[in-house]
């Protein structure tokens, strides 16, 4: 028994030695990263890392069972990510096994040299030293097409790279990694024993007794013939008119992250069999809007795009758009989509403070990741005390002045910017503002619902 265990540990250590890119710099960084106190304070009993590559946005679900090894209240639990990973994290969330949210904060002080450190604080009332919780990640830019170019009739493959192990500062007793693929066809995958491919699932592990900061390259090459729509940029402009209307203009630049189409694009083949000759391409885009949205317009710089339809359900309006042409890998297109919402469904006034509160979803109405997002809120002339509350941090927040129709001093515009968004960011933001001098809102602003003019 003991010999077997020893051999196993030896193998694991050897594997780590082989697979990890442990340069001196790295070690230095690791030491800088966390002091020994933190390293030893927790021991992970069981870690299960589930990577889901079947959806549009790759996600990771890391289930952690851990024990606090010191006396007294546990300090923060640190979750760390390597350089390669930290750039790919678009969204992070932590919750206990029974579903209650845990606060997870990026520790900017300790996040150095590209490494990122997040700290989780457990609720104080828990006297137990054992914790069981889940960290969820939404990834962006994590899978790359390989080969990078394909012809119209070829299958499409993606490569996903990661660390087999959960990159944690604490020693781990046992860990398992599961990867699910969109199809059964996996060209190649990492073979760190024990690894087994069952259908569209790759199971690595369980591995026993892993040191802190362990790394073993994970590389999977798998077939994914699904399109990967990506919103290159989205500018969402809200025009608030206190005559009762909210005008929304969404300007999308949308592309496909699949392998670039080279050679012939044959319309004949495409129209004959879209499954075979339109692999990885898309033409249909669905927008999910507020249930009371009305007055839709779908156009680009050369005029209206005549292919769209909408359905209304009880809680939302679904718009099905067709882009002008099918979007193959690395093709792109852009368009505007505009609509109105009666202001009463988005605006409320607090009796206590006398402030208005505008509630509107952040992010896109399309289910796709976004690279650059900008949200502009044009408020009525004379608005003051503008303040935005977002459920997550934004990259920048600034003010502009917008002039239209008979404006004199101009309307204040609140600009919120954030890069790398995933659909999970589509949460409401709240904008508070004061508008005491109603007189200043001119008659003409009611017409401003059609402010599609951009110069």
């Amino acid at each position, binding site marked *: 028994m003991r010999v077997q265990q020893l051999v196993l540990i030896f193998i694991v250590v050897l594997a780590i030695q082989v697979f990890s890119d442990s340069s001196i710099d790295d070690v230095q960084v690791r030491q800088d990263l966390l002091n020994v106190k933190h390293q030893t304070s927790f021991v992970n009993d069981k870690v299960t890392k589930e990577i889901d590559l079947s959806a549009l946005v790759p996600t990771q679900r890391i289930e952690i069972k851990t024990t606090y090894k010191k006396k007294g209240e546990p300090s923060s639990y640190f979750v760390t990510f390597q350089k390669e990973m930290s750039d790919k994290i678009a969204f992070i969330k932590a919750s206990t096994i029974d579903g209650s949210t845990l606060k997870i904060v990026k520790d900017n002080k300790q996040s150095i040299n590209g490494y990122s450190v997040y700290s989780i604080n457990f609720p104080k009332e828990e006297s137990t030293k054992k914790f069981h919780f889940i960290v969820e990640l939404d990834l962006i830019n994590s899978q790359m097409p390989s080969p990078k170019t394909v012809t119209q009739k070829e299958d499409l493959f993606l490569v996903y790279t990661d660390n087999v192990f959960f990159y944690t500062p604490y020693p781990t007793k046992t860990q398992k990694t599961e990867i699910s693929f969109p199809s059964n066809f996996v060209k190649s995958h990492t073979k760190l024993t024990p690894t087994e491919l069952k259908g569209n699932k790759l199971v690595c592990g369980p591995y026993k007794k892993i040191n802190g900061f362990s790394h073993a390259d994970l590389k999977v090459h798998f077939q994914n013939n699904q399109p990967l729509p990506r919103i290159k940029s989205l500018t969402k402009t809200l025009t608030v008119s206190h005559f009762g209307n909210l005008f929304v203009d969404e300007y999308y630049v949308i592309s496909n992250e699949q392998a670039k189409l080279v*050679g*012939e*694009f*044959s*319309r*004949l083949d495409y*129209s004959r069999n879209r499954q075979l000759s339109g692999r990885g391409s898309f033409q249909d885009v669905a927008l999910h809007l507020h249930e009371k949205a009305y007055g839709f317009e779908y156009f*680009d710089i*050369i*005029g209206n*795009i*005549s*292919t769209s339809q909408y359905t209304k359900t009880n809680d939302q309006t679904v718009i099905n758009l067709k882009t*002008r*042409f099918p979007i193959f890998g690395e*093709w*792109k*297109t*852009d368009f505007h989509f505009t609509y109105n919402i009666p202001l009463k469904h988005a605006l409320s006034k607090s009796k206590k403070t006398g402030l208005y509160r505008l509630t509107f979803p952040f992010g896109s109405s399309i289910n796709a990741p976004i690279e650059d997002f900008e949200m502009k809120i044009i408020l009525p002339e004379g608005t003051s005390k503008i303040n935005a509350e977002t459920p997550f941090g934004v990259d920048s927040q600034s003010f502009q002045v917008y002039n*239209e*129709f*008979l404006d004199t001093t101009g309307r204040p515009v609140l600009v919120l910017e954030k890069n790398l968004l995933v659909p999970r960011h589509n949460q409401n933001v709240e904008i508070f503002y004061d508008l005491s001098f109603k007189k200043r809102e001119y008659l003409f602003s009611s017409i*401003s619902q059609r*402010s599609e*003019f951009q*110069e």
Partner: protein
Amino acid sequence: MSWYPLGRVVGGTVFPGIMLTAGTLYFFLKKIVRITVHIKHVCVFMGPFFASNASLITYLFTKEVSKDYGAGLISAVMIAIVPGYISRSVAGSFDNECIAIFALILTYYLWLKAVNTGSMFYAASCALAYLYMVSSWGGYVFIMNLIPLHAFVLIIVGRYSKRLYVAYTTLYILGTLLSMQVPFVGFQAVQSSEHLAGMGIFGLIQLVAAVKYVHSILGEKYFKLFLKILGFIAVSILVLFVVIGFATGYIAPWTGRFLSLLDPTYAKKYIPIIASVSEHQPTAWSSYFFDLQSLVFLYPVGLYYCFKNPSDSKIFLILYAVTSTYFTGVMVRLMLVLAPICVILGSMALSNLFKLFAYKIREFDEENKNKKKSQNKNTKKQNKKKKKTEQNKIFNLGYISATLMIAVLTAMFISYIFHSIWVTSEAYSSPSIVLAAKGYDGNRIIFDDFREAYYWLRQNTAPDAKIMSWWDYGYQITAMANRTVLVDNNTWNNTHIGTVGKAMVKTENISAQVMEQHDVDYVLVLFGGLIGYSSDDINKYLWLVRIGGTVDPSIKEEDYLNSRKEFRVDSQGAPTFLNSMMYKLCFYRFWEVKTEGNKPSGYDRVRNTVMGNQNYELEAVEEAFTSEHWIVRIYKVLKKENRK
């Protein structure tokens, strides 16, 4: 950029009027009135806006000529909806003509005003209006010839007056100087033959004025001798000038478009590029009725009234009507110039006829009233009853015919309105860039292929990609696809267009060479065979051959026709055609498509026949994009090393 690799001096090759007007309107709305508009919307509504201005001016014009408010009002109504003009003034037709017709009528109105009053103010205003016209449309040449013609005819028929002298000299000098300020015109205004008539009449009118003056000083006896000597000198000087002018090349010969006006067959013989435009074809008789409807019958009536009671301005109307009728016979596009004069004459006719018959009815009514009065007086005198009934019968006949005529005229007028509305909605309102058809179930099917393909070019080709296509689509590609084209609708260089024609009609090898020389990245062709869109490149093919023939004499039209002199796309077509680049691009892999149920695959729905040359491979190019209904096909030109 356009006209790669030559480039084009925009200022020297376009009329700036429409851009200036749109820019001014935009500036006025945006900066002065502070209304939020986009320049795009200003452009879209330029047509209707200037049509409404034209309507006002037509009212003034007709009133000035006929001294009749009624005729003026009718003309304003009629020009507002005349199909011949509405084709150029619907929303979105941002074209030179949309402001030019307004400028044309304005110039003529001010000219007549100047002739009728002898006022230098009106003549100077006329010169300004003329400047506006010159800056907006090449059709200004029509003014510069019609006004001298009018002056000439007035002199000939002995209607010379000091009013005419003042009006003409002021207009000619100011107008010519002003028109020279437009870069596109420049010194053409005094050098080119098209403008010579104006100068000649200017000289003549000086002569006539001088003669009149001398006549008033000399007696009859010496005057005749003087006239003989003067005449001899004048003619010899004129001949000398013309000979020297042409010999030194100082006076440019007539341009092709102008010559083809005088000689309808000229263009077909010598300048295929002018003849290839469908708007430059002679007008079919049906299109007169289509564009003018009842005005076709009314305007000769108006002419009759002009002849019956001539005046300086009515003579002008006659000249305008006669010349423009001739010109429309030559070129269908000039229907635009005919429409206003038809409206003016037609409304004069309508107004006069209405008045004529309305007076008849009124006369009868008054007589009737008088009779009733006398009847009341003489009720007791019943012995005269018989005579009265007889009289009533005769009057009733006149009454009925007058009422009938009014009814007919009203019906004519109403039918004109209905016709105009119908034509506008059916023929002139649909954007030609989006095609629509009705499906079997009555649903509207939209073919948005052009914009689909242009937008694809805009989004998914390199920003500096050079696109070769036939010149018809040049402007569209420049604006919608935002890409560089070799040739476009500003057909200022015929050899470059000819080169493109050559690249399209020659074999793939030669075509590849031409494309390589011109740095072409993509070729764009139009093909309507799949859905039956008839104005595609195959139907324009022979024009490509003719125009291409002007740069390469080895391209001969006969080679593209089969032994029976037919142009066919099926297996009986000429082999030169079936192996040409354009054929290969249009029909590539079309032989695999089944277009109609009971027909073999590769059945062309425009030419109604099965394509001839099948199963070929393309070597120099590869298909880059084809729109949903195959109307636009774009091919990527392969670099030499990448070819198969």
